[in-house]
């Protein structure tokens, strides 16, 4: 065990998987010599060379399309887009090609690719570089979606994503790259579809992902002083979703608050809220509350951007007003 940042944990996962399995390779814009837009692939070019850490032209459709092709031909590519916001131009390669090959070819083809993309607001990168788009990918059958909140989860989930035989969209939060945590030096997997109870409590369950897990934890400390005991569940992957982990917690606390950074409308939180309503409504002693960003693009102005994102105060207020 060692203290590592979220970024180092991701780097370790790729390095160790590439050492173990020669079919694993990396492609993307500036992932080589430059080490990636945020530095996640730093040092890998020097260690593995340009054949396994490939810089590409500025074309997301080429990156995703090449990854899908290489994966179906037997390699295990890890593709990186600089920002999730750029997936628009490569959407056909992802949702019509990569996601459907295994189904349309009767299982004869498999697409073991990982598509790593930073997302999230909070770095004053404006509307086209700050979105949280996890719900887009959740809606397409055939794609798995990882959204880690801690360094340890980031490493374990990325290893599982690389070894998975299906396309996995791997969403990293820009504000989390620098956070530190205990990470095992050895390779380990966290199975896709296993949620984690981040904090135990008895009065209300907060389901949160990525940056929101950390804000929920801060909110829980404040609420504890009011005598409200908060349980926090991080599903860690949205597809597959660990329903049982969320339901077990909801059945225990009888109240559910879902926090997401993305706009509230048609988000991952809506899916989770609906699932709990369908399967455990009789256990609930308060309306389900969803917390998300307002239905507008992420503002560039720093004060407006702060006001836009779900904050610790907003989580505290939502829990207090729920009962």
């Amino acid at each position, binding site marked *: 065990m060692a203290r590592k940042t979220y970024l180092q944990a991701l780097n370790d996962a790729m390095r160790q998987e590439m050492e173990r399995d020669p079919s694993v390779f990396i492609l993307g814009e500036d992932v080589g010599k430059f080490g990636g837009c945020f530095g996640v692939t730093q040092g890998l070019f020097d260690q593995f060379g340009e054949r396994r850490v490939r810089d590409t032209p500025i074309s997301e459709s080429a990156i995703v399309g090449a990854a899908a092709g290489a994966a179906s031909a037997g390699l295990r590519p890890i593709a990186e887009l600089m920002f999730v916001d750029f997936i628009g131009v490569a959407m056909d390669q992802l949702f019509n090609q990569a996601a459907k090959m295994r189904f349309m070819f009767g299982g004869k083809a498999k697409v073991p690719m990982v598509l790593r993309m930073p997302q999230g607001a909070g770095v004053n990168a404006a509307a086209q570089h700050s979105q949280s788009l996890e719900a887009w990918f959740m809606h397409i059958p055939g794609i798995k979606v990882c959204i880690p909140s801690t360094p340890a989860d980031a490493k374990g989930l990325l290893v599982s994503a690389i070894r998975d035989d299906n396309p996995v969209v791997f969403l990293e939060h820009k504000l989390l790259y620098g956070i530190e945590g205990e990470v095992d030096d050895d390779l380990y997997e966290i199975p896709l579809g296993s949620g984690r109870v981040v904090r135990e409590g008895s009065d209300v369950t907060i389901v949160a992902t990525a940056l929101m897990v950390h804000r929920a934890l801060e909110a829980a400390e404040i609420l504890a002083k009011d005598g409200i005991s908060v349980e926090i569940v991080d599903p860690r992957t949205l597809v597959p979703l660990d329903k049982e982990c969320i339901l077990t917690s909801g059945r225990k606390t*009888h109240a559910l608050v879902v926090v997401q950074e993305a706009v509230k409308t048609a988000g991952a939180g809506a899916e989770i809220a609906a699932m709990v309503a369908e399967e455990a*409504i009789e256990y609930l002693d308060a309306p389900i509350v969803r917390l998300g960003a307002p239905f507008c693009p992420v503002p560039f102005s720093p004060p407006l951007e702060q006001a836009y994102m779900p904050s610790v105060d907003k989580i505290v207020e939502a829990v207090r007003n729920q009962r």
Partner: protein
Amino acid sequence: MSTELTMPKLGLTMKTGKVARWLVAEGACVHQGDEIFEVETDKITNKVESPADGVLVRILVPQGEVVEVGTVLGLLGEAGEAVDAPAQSASAPAAAPAGDAEEKGAASPAAVQAAAPAQASDTSWILATPRARALSRFLELDLRHVTPTGANGRIREADVIARQDVLSRIAITPLARVLASQAGLDICTLTGSGEGGKIVRADVERALNPEAAQAAPAAAAVESAAADVREMVLDECSGASPVRTLSATVDVTACQQLLGDMKRLGAQYKKAAAALDLGLLMALVAARTLAAHPALNAVYGNGRLVRERSVQLALRTMPAGSEALLSDAQGKGLLALASDRQAAGAGSSTFVLTSYAGSRVERATPALGAGQAAGLVLGAPVQRAVSCNGSLTLREACDVTLGYDARLVTDAEACAFMDALVAAADNPLLLVF
């Protein structure tokens, strides 16, 4: 009769007000002084209190609407009361924009009628969490009588539990419960006239049909009225308690014989032997007699006189001065009482028996425990020559003296108790039956 809740005039210049929030759900019980709705004007927000006890039988103006001062917002009545919507034309709700006032005016009474709980048992219109609703179904508890504490007047699980808690403490006969439930009556609003304030069939019928009940002079009603008068007297003279005493002589020969036999014959009584004496036997006799005379097993406190069904008897033994609480003494046998006495437990009692049986004191004035209606003193046994079938014979006898608070117990009740006590003590074997 229902009481109209109207938009109050909260300031000199106030002409209209907004019903910001109903704090009580339609169908819920309210007490005088409970906050019932919230009014918002351009100047202030104020919570309005209920003018009376009752049930919010109808909400006529939903929250969020702006109406003129004096507009009837809702009706307060008794549980299960059928209410006709008041003539809205007299005080038509003034909707804010003139343009759609007509449309709203036309739609409003119709909407009220449609929303009115046509079927008395329909609770689908009550705002409650799924968990609260499931629990109320499980407990077969009527959501209309639950007071909500959740946001927007929502009933939560805790509210249902609180209601169940209240219900579980109400003494009511099974028949009365069924009748009240069939009629949609909230049993919290009923006054019990049975033993110890228990709600009986007559109380439910009286609530359903007050006129018929008034016409027929019900004995139970007289009893409860008498009790009310006594409570009033009690409030007025809350100074020194007027304790009266009644004395009688008890023939304890049979009691002593019984105690002697138990000690001599029963090896199993050995452990209890030290606690088996005349005082304990009299405690058993008194407890069983009190169970049939709850007027004397009563405690007054916080403005309420509660006639207890179970006897918490404090037994003081002189000259040792020791005290033991014999809890639920009316249902226990002599050995169980002996073990209670040896445990020398403490706690709040409903009745005190002071035994001088082990001393030479023959008579004493009973001192009553705090708020207690009555207490008893047992004197030392003495040999007395009594006439038996025409010849004199020696018998062992004790004086027993009852002290009672004349504000809580009538002389007749005290006398009836003493007669029963003496009869049982003279022949303790009667207690077997």
